[in-house]
């Protein structure tokens, strides 16, 4: 049992709760109709388009989260510009951060 500032965390208790929850879910599932299967609804639905052969269907990594990347395009453009891969720039970033820390600790942080 792990005591945190405002409570506690016990994984064993959590697993117990998980098992109980799964049991309850299984019981609720048991109320369902057994014959409610097959037909149109069990087929995959892809925006009304034709489904390619199910055995060969696999979304490539490059296409996952396409929308997210598209939405944050400006941010990712900046990031691409920063990550040049030139070793001189790495050193320049290091020196830049050191300079910033100099300013913060030596000038701003007066005790």
């Amino acid at each position: 049992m792990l005591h945190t500032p405002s409570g506690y965390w016990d994984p064993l208790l959590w697993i117990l709760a998980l098992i109980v929850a799964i049991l309850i879910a299984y019981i609720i599932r048991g109320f369902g109709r057994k014959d409610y299967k097959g037909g149109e609804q069990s087929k995959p639905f892809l925006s009304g388009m034709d489904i390619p052969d199910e055995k060969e269907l696999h979304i490539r990594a490059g296409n996952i989260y396409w929308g997210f990347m598209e939405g944050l395009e400006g941010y990712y453009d900046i990031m691409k510009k920063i990550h040049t891969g030139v070793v001189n720039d790495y050193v320049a970033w290091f020196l830049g951060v050191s300079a910033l820390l100099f300013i913060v600790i030596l000038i701003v942080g007066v005790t």
Partner: protein
Amino acid sequence: MNMNWLLTHSPALLIAIPLLAAFLTPLIDRLSKRARNVLVLIVLITVEVVMIVLAWDVFTGNTHIYTMGASNPTATIPVQAAIPIRIVLEVDGLSAFMGLISATVSLAAGLYSLAFVRRETGQGRYYTLLLLMLVGMLGMEFTGDLFNLFVFLEILSIASAALIAYRFYRGDAVEGAFKYFVISSLGALMVLFAIGLLYGQYDLLNMAALAKVMKYTMLDKIALVLFIAAFAMKCGAIPMHMWVPDSYTVAPASITAMLVVASQVSLYALFRICFSLYGLTLDVTTVGIIIISLGLLSMFVGVTMALPQKDIKRLMSYHAISQTGYMLLGVGVGLYLIGKPEFSTYGMAAMEGGIFHIFNHALYKGLLFLTAGAIFYKVKTRNLNEMRGLAHSMKFTAIFFMIGAFAIAGIPPFNGFASKLLIYESVYCVSPILSIIAMLVSIITLASFVKVFHSAFMGPPMRNTKEGEVPKSMLIGMVILTVGIILFGLFPGWVVDHIVHPAAQALADQAAYIQAVIGG
């Protein structure tokens, strides 16, 4: 050889045994490959066992001091002098904690290497350098002497650079190694310069003795800036992180797991210098805010950069940066609150969370890199676009990957959740925004590992790969880390009370650190 003798000498033995074995390896390599592997394994297991024995003793409250070459291991101050002159090893809670991490991950990486580098040439040198990396890490953790810290830092970075370039027949491996080495030797030189600044003022190199007389003058501030910049760069804090994905990607997977720990050791050095060397003389608010903001930046930029990556190891290296951010955040909040009334509740919890996260991260990120290596071993590519359906043939690897991914995303009941919970709850005290960002980062982490799992393991099987699982020794290496993750996940309370709390206490209590060496 009784238990007491072993305990007294264990700090020196832990550094000396791998060092001796490192140079024996190339000789034995010429006689027999099998004998070399056995030697390396025996040494790694010995280090792990001795480390557990030592750590157990340290966690019960005894700080171990070892003075090299003195007539008595605890005689830190020679009779003729008033200050510590010899090299002093000081193993307190945090050192033992970090040593435990290094030994465990090295053992897993060593086992994994047996099969993983089987087809490569120059294995004798590979194991030499692997043991030297272990020496560098343990040395940096145990030493109580600033210059010695620099020496072990350089041993660590030279060994790491040589190992990153281990597949030298690939151009990108050498490129990554060169980039890593340029920036890390520059950082090490800055550390040396800072050590010179401190030595020039106080004529001391021993950290405890320095801490006692530290006045926080202008030169001390300059030294502090150089230390923070160099060690933050070495642990991969954004925006000085660019070498991390480059070098982690091209190194052999077992070495990448070690490199993760090497970064954590730099993090240890950063914390050690902020807390034990400067301590309360420091302007804790400013430095705390600096470390917190480095942490936030690392968390957020690291995870968002990980999301679009197509190279599996590159993606994981960006996650390594983002997870380092959690540690910086947790311990930074601790530093920010030190000396304030909230420290005993929230500050301590934040530091426990940050330090606990170091161990958790070493375990699950090591495991994830090892699974990435297993995938590379099988399909000979790191590109996620070119792989699919690997779960059909690599069932165990898929399960290990899933456990690692759940742990890194902070899904209960794995270990990542426990440390993240501590961090979320305690940084809330400084500002609720910190907690919100931390949770957001966790969600994006899960999202990107869903992507990896989907594209590597799901879908129809690949046509032109061999069936079957990776060799047994690789699986054993992964099992060690998986068992660690599950145990730490199921018993977080015990771990925090008996392992993490002494480590955080050692970091927070500067007076005890000084007293152990100087006395009085």
